[in-house]
């Protein structure tokens, strides 16, 4: 303490502080004078201007909603448009007794509980002089009924708004998705001033993932109004900036053809252009009518959709996770070659089952008698399980998982639609973490034939075969091709995005695997040779079957005895033409049985449509817009 004081020069400090205090006093005076001069400017210089604004007439600021961007397919067909509909709106400021007014409207036209509930939510959100919608999509009769009674209902107005409409209905439901009314939790996530006049927001699909681009920017008017809130004249207007139009890479004709090929079956199909990653078709069967959701779906219809055993709301292409089965054999085989585990000429003897040393369990081949001696080409061609048991066993799970990872297994593809599932690529670490168990050698075997823990989405299967066909260039699948500014017409193309280039040790290995896949279709013993009839181009493919439930060691799989629900899923991955691939297709038919008989023909039809009948017109697709 004493030392501290000794260092301080008290009188000097006092005078220093006094100087600073005088400065602070001067600063206070200057700042307050600055405020005063501002007040003089507002209250004296510009007094007349502000008086005009404030007197009998007052200024309101009214937001104007931007027009939502349109969505087209690659041939310019409109997939999402805005149609005018009439809605009933209420200006709260001009209503004396809200309860009575609502009751009076309820006697004229139908107003549901849900309408009222939503109305009250909106009422809180908006300013007193802004219209709040009560009912959408009024019929002509309802418009007339309200018009006749309008003199009794001050503050109630009929207005024409644009409402979202999806002309291709369930054909686009799993791609485009739909918009719906802005819900309470969404309010917190959006810029409320930009959505001041907006009633709808993208909920799923492209409508949701491209919400920012589609929405546009709000405009506003400074409107001079009288004391009752009625607009007298517009003082200043900033027009809204309309949302951007989206051009999808989806070919609707192809999409419709693919859906028709499914017939009554459920499942998914994804077609990708392997050169660009552009998604040409994305099918999840069955679909649903997205128009039901736009202006609020009634609880009963919704429950029927949500609880349906067909699960129409479930996007199988993006979110369905299935064992890929034999469809991964080409990539496993390629991994075997590229890691030096096997040579193309190596033979394995298939006697119908495979056993591990010190284990009595028989890992069975799908063909009871076995395939005899097979090399890689035969093994892919005939889908021999024993060959791949042996290959996977020699390769080990670590190398196997590493190689599969190059092809995108176990990770989201990054497609520009939200909600994609990541599938599952099992590893030792994963099993230790999730199951708290070590990895067993037998699990490596069944991973080698695409069973066990391994799961993939149909989208991942399509993306992986696209990667295989393009010599290892893994691209991000994209549904949107170009974004167009409707004001200027300028189109901005989204460029393909390379996610990874799979390392290529020896291009011959790749050629050999592709040749084997080609023989799956065109070879005399190929598992999908049934679809080769009258084909005019070379198609490479691989069939697959995913077990829905396991059968015991000594049991037989008898399709007839098993109920449809428990039957195997049929799979087919493919690309064509072999020399210059332009389309890669993955097909999954739920509970379809064998890949060769059910899934492969669907892929063939899609490829025919894309590669051969490209000149066909929209009408040829057999459907017209609803």
């Amino acid at each position, binding site marked *: 303490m004493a030392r501290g004081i000794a260092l301080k020069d008290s009188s000097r400090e006092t005078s220093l502080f006094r100087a*600073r205090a005088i400065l*602070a006093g001067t600063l206070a005076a200057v700042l307050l004078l600055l405020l*005063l001069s501002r*007040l003089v400017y507002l209250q004296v210089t510009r007094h007349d*201007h*502000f008086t005009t604004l*404030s007197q009998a007439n007052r200024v309101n*600021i009214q937001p104007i909603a931007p027009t939502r961007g349109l969505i087209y397919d690659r041939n310019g067909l409109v997939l999402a448009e805005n149609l005018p509909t009439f809605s009933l709106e209420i200006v709260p400021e001009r209503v004396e007794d809200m309860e009575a007014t609502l009751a009076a409207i309820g006697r004229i036209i139908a107003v549901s509980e849900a309408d009222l509930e939503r109305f009250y939510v909106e009422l809180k959100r908006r300013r007193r002089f802004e219209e709040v919608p009560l009912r959408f999509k009024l019929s002509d009769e309802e418009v007339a009924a309200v018009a006749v009674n309008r003199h009794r209902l001050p503050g109630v107005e009929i207005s024409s708004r644009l409402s979202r409409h999806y002309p291709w209905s369930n054909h686009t439901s799993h791609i485009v998705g739909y918009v719906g009314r802005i819900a309470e939790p969404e309010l917190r996530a959006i810029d409320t001033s930009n959505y001041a006049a907006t009633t709808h927001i993208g909920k799923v699909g492209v409508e949701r993932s491209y919400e920012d681009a589609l929405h546009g920017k709000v405009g*506003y008017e400074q409107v001079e109004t009288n004391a009752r809130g009625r607009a007298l004249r517009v003082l200043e207007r900033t027009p809204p900036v309309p949302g951007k139009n989206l051009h999808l890479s989806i070919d609707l004709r192809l999409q419709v053809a693919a859906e028709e090929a499914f017939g009554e079956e459920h499942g998914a199909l994804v077609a990708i252009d392997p050169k660009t990653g552009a998604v040409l078709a994305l099918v999840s069967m069955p679909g649903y009518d997205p128009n039901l959701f736009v202006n609020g779906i009634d609880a009963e219809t919704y429950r029927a959709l949500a609880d349906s055993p067909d699960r129409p709301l479930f996007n199988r292409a993006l979110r369905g996770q299935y064992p890929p089965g034999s469809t991964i054999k080409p990539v496993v085989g390629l991994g075997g070659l590229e890691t030096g585990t096997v040579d193309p000429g190596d033979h394995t003897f298939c006697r119908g089952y495979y056993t591990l040393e010190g284990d009595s369990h028989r890992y069975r081949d799908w063909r009871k008698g076995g395939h005899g001696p097979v090399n890689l080409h035969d093994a892919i061609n005939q889908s021999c399980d024993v060959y791949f048991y042996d290959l996977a066993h020699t390769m080990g799970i670590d190398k196997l998982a590493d190689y599969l990872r190059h092809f995108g297994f176990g990770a989201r593809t990054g497609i520009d639609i939200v909600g994609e599932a990541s599938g599952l690529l099992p590893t030792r670490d994963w099993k230790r973490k999730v199951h708290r168990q070590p990895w067993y050698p037998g699990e490596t075997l069944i991973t080698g034939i695409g069973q066990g823990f391994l799961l993939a989405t149909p989208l991942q299967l399509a993306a992986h075969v696209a990667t295989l066909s393009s010599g290892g260039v893994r691209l991000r699948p994209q549904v949107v091709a170009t974004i167009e500014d409707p004001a200027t017409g300028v189109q901005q193309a989204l460029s393909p995005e390379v996610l990874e280039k799979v390392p290529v040790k020896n291009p011959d290995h790749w050629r050999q695997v592709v040749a084997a896949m080609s023989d799956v279709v065109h070879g005399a013993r190929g598992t999908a040779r049934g679809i080769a009839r009258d084909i005019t181009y070379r198609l490479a493919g691989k069939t697959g079957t995913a077990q829905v439930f396991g059968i015991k060691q000594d049991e037989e799989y008898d399709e007839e005895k098993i109920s449809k629900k428990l039957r195997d899923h049929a799979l087919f991955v493919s690309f064509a033409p072999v020399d210059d691939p332009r389309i890669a297709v993955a097909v999954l038919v739920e509970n379809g049985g064998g890949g060769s008989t059910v899934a492969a023909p669907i892929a063939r039809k899609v490829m025919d449509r894309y590669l051969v009948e490209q000149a066909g017109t929209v009408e040829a697709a057999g459907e017209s817009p609803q």
Partner: protein
Amino acid sequence: MNTFTDTSPTALLAKRLHLDLPLLMGLLLLAGIGLVTLYSAGGQDMDVVMRQLMRLGIGFAVMFTVAQIPPSALRRWTPWIYGVGMAALIAVLVIGVIGKGAQRWLDLGPIRFQPSEMMKVAVPAMIAWYFAEKPLPPRLSHVFMAVALFLVPFTLVAKQPDLGTALLIGSAGGAALLFAGIRWRLVGYAFLAFIPTAVLAWMYGLREYQRQRILMFLDAESDPLGAGYHIIQSKIAVGSGGIYGKGWLNGTQSHLEFLPERHTDFIFAVFGEEFGLFGAVLLLAVYFFVIWRGLSISVNAQDTFTRLLAGSLIISLLVYVFVNIGMVTGLLPVVGVPLPLLSYGGSSLVTLMAGFGILMSVQTHRKLVNT
């Protein structure tokens, strides 16, 4: 200025009660103006006025209580108060991270506690405490330490995000440094260092949407549906008030719900509309009187701690007034800062009155020795 030599009976009583009469008069006058304006702004709702009256009662009680505490005790407690405040700020930040949103409150069972409020007093007190025994003007190393003492809580509060309170904490800390006699050369360097840092941060450190947000913040009127709406409406209110105002209870703008937040942060718009330039000059004069009185208390204070503390607390008041009225008149961007003693609301009032209590304590606990 030397009121302690005043021997009139009132002055002696005030001295015994540890009240500073000129300061008290100024504050009561402001509170009175506030209640009158609030009655009009709150739609002539007596309940609102009564609630504010109760808050003012609590505020003045806090001031009176704090005034009884001798500055030496305040000085002893300062590091503890600062420490607790910092701990609470960090706690709020952690809970805020968990709650995924802006968090200012700490829920201590029945009491809701806003640590950032407390720091408005604790930060200048801590810097005053730190410089109390140091030779002044301070050495460079001491300046750095003092800057850290206010920059850390400033950053924590700004992150909440509560820019208004952060601004007040930062300016109180800066004022304490200036009163401590920091050399102008250092202030100049700090300013020069700030510019390139800000430019670099603008160019590389911020994302596009963050830049947009700052631009929007600086030019609120470009967003007439959001923040700009307040400004447009409050300028119309103040401007249409003219020289003499529209008269009490006659403000059309403020009574037709065109004016948002009209009884809290934007109450000056109601005042300006109803009492005009004439009333505004009077109001500013009262504020200036209170600031002048506070500065003279700090000049007469007997040691470094009380001097720095009193000085920076009164500068806080100046910042409150300037930022609030500047915002309402469209001179400054919109920051949530209330107008002292006029705005409706409780939490900042208590801190503010505690600050005035400290000023009174400093003034009335001086020993009668001539230094």
